[in-house]
């Protein structure tokens, strides 16, 4: 091996473990040491876990006994976002509210990953309760982008993107409510994928917007992202919104894929070199035999507005549970009401309070029709537009973000931060799967920064996104 062990992809590491080029212990040590070395600077992890000698030994024994039949994830060190429950570990969602909350059970994805033999390096930093696009809204300080430490790693899964991008884990898990996997993946040069809503169980995820949230992988290659997705997907009796294999019809596609491009969305608000990189990537795909199709998605211009009504509405309802009574921060006043108010007011950061207030407003009597119900209807129209567009194309492409990673503090007013999600929120509103794949670099202040291309496909056509992504990266799946 020419690369240090922590810089391997999952596919490369699995091969090395099977050929006994190195051991599970050596792979763990390489990641764990790099995490300890880089974390003081990056603040990617809120906690680094000590080595679990039993889990390491079990993984090694399985690889020795089962060889090629062992899961490709067996013995693989992975970083876990702090809003995904691992029994016995703190899960704080990067909030003071849950600083002392220890998970009482494994989330379904944790359970599946443990069964596959994954080792958890630590829990990663994030925007508090996944509310943000830069990881600047963590109660435990911002995470830095390993590509350029003066810039944000994206968010809300910014700790996960920094952890995987800095090779402190072979890959990471994130959650995506409006782009929180795909946008940080784009900003750190990773592949990030949000599955079809319901494809992966939400049981044991700390909820932000229940009709929008999905967990998914952040990985160094499309193949690695697919390995993680394949292990985590599936129906779960603990999440009634999970899909069965026959929920959506199977989409038949040819070898040559039809790529829909909504040109009308690319006219403004996009950096010129990001657009150039996007056009170059599309040109390379057409050279490989894929075709470009113009598609029109007229309601897309309203997607972000609808999202910033629906998400805070759901968030304000979900976050009502943190009242200082059963778990989490418990401040005490003169009455039960004061117990609630004081616990919430000291536990939540300002972005969280902003969204709770916004959610309370759009659901309040007199405003619910104009805001929440209208946004909910717009969501249906958007979904119908995408369904119609998929009649003439297999995937829809645009850049993941309008610009590369920005500097800390650059987007200090809420609306400019929300605009980071302008391309990614639609897939959460429609429930369709989406992927971000690195498409090249752009230069800012003498530093090369990665940018991503984003593909969406029809409900249930998650695998098609991996096929499309591999065409961009040149991988063979």
């Amino acid at each position, binding site marked *: 091996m020419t690369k240090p062990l922590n810089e391997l992809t999952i596919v490369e590491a699995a091969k090395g473990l099977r050929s006994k080029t190195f051991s599970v212990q050596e792979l763990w040590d390489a990641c764990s040491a790099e995490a300890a070395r880089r974390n003081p600077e990056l603040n990617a992890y809120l906690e680094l876990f000590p080595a679990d000698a039993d889990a390491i030994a079990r993984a090694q024994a399985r690889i020795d006994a089962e060889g090629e039949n062992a899961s490709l994830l067996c013995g693989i060190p992975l970083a876990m976002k702090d809003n995904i429950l691992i029994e016995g570990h703190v899960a704080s969602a990067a909030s003071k509210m849950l600083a002392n*909350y*220890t998970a*009482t*059970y494994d989330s379904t994805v944790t359970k599946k990953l443990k069964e596959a033999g994954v080792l958890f390096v630590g829990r990663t930093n994030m925007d508090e309760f996944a509310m943000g696009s830069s990881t600047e809204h963590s109660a435990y300080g911002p995470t830095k982008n390993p590509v350029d430490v003066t810039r944000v790693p994206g968010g809300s899964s910014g700790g996960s993107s920094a952890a995987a991008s800095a090779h402190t884990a072979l890959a990471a898990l994130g959650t995506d409510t409006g782009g929180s996997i795909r946008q940080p993946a784009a900003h750190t040069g990773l592949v990030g994928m949000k599955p079809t809503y319901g494809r992966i169980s939400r049981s044991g995820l700390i909820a932000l917007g229940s009709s929008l949230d999905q967990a998914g992988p952040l990985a160094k290659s499309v193949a690695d992202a697919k390995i993680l997705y394949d292990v985590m997907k599936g129906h779960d*009796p603990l999440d*009634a*919104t999970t899909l069965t294999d026959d929920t959506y019809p199977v989409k038949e596609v040819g070898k040559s894929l039809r790529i829909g491009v909504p040109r009308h969305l690319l006219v403004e608000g996009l950096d010129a070199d990001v657009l150039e990189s996007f056009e170059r990537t599309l040109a390379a795909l057409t050279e490989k035999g894929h075709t470009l199709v113009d598609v029109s998605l007229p*309601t897309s*211009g*309203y997607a*972000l*507005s*609808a999202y*910033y*009504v629906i998400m805070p509405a759901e968030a*304000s309802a979900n976050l*009502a549970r943190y*009242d*200082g*009574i*059963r*778990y*989490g921060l*418990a401040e005490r006043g003169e*009455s*039960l*009401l004061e*117990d*609630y*108010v004081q616990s*919430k*007011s000291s536990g*939540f950061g*300002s972005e969280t*309070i*902003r969204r*709770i*207030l*916004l*959610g*309370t*407003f*759009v659901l*309040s009597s007199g*405003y619910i029709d*104009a*805001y929440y119900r*209208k*946004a909910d*209807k*717009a969501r*249906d*129209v958007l*979904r*119908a537009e995408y369904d119609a567009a998929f009649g003439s194309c297999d995937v829809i492409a645009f850049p993941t973000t309008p610009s590369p990673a920005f500097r800390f503090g650059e987007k200090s*007013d*809420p*609306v400019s931060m*929300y605009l980071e999600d302008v391309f990614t929120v639609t897939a959460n509103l429609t429930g369709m799967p989406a992927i971000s794949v690195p498409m090249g670099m752009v230069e800012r202040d003498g530093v090369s920064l990665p940018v991503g291309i984003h593909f969406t496909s029809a409900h249930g056509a998650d695998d098609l996104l991996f096929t499309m992504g591999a065409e961009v990266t040149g991988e063979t799946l």
Partner: protein
Amino acid sequence: MSTAKASAEDVARLASLARVTVPEADLARFATEFDSILAYVGKLDELTLPESGRVQSEVRNVLREDTEPYASGTWTEKIVAQFPEKSGDSLSVKQIISHD
């Protein structure tokens, strides 16, 4: 729909509905931010939508069998350990209704 300007009093009223307090010094800032957010999401106002209500079929509800999903007591110890105040295995809260 977003013509009205949010005032510090509006923010304080919403905060009380949401059972949080916003420090006096932050009320004006929150109100200004609220205005710009509502101006942005207010774009929805321009959008003409089909009259016929939902254009997609309603989301279906999925129910499980109405039985005990796990044996009583399985999680008690771990959950009780998280209680801020307890008496045995019971959660303690302040008295809500008084008989005075």
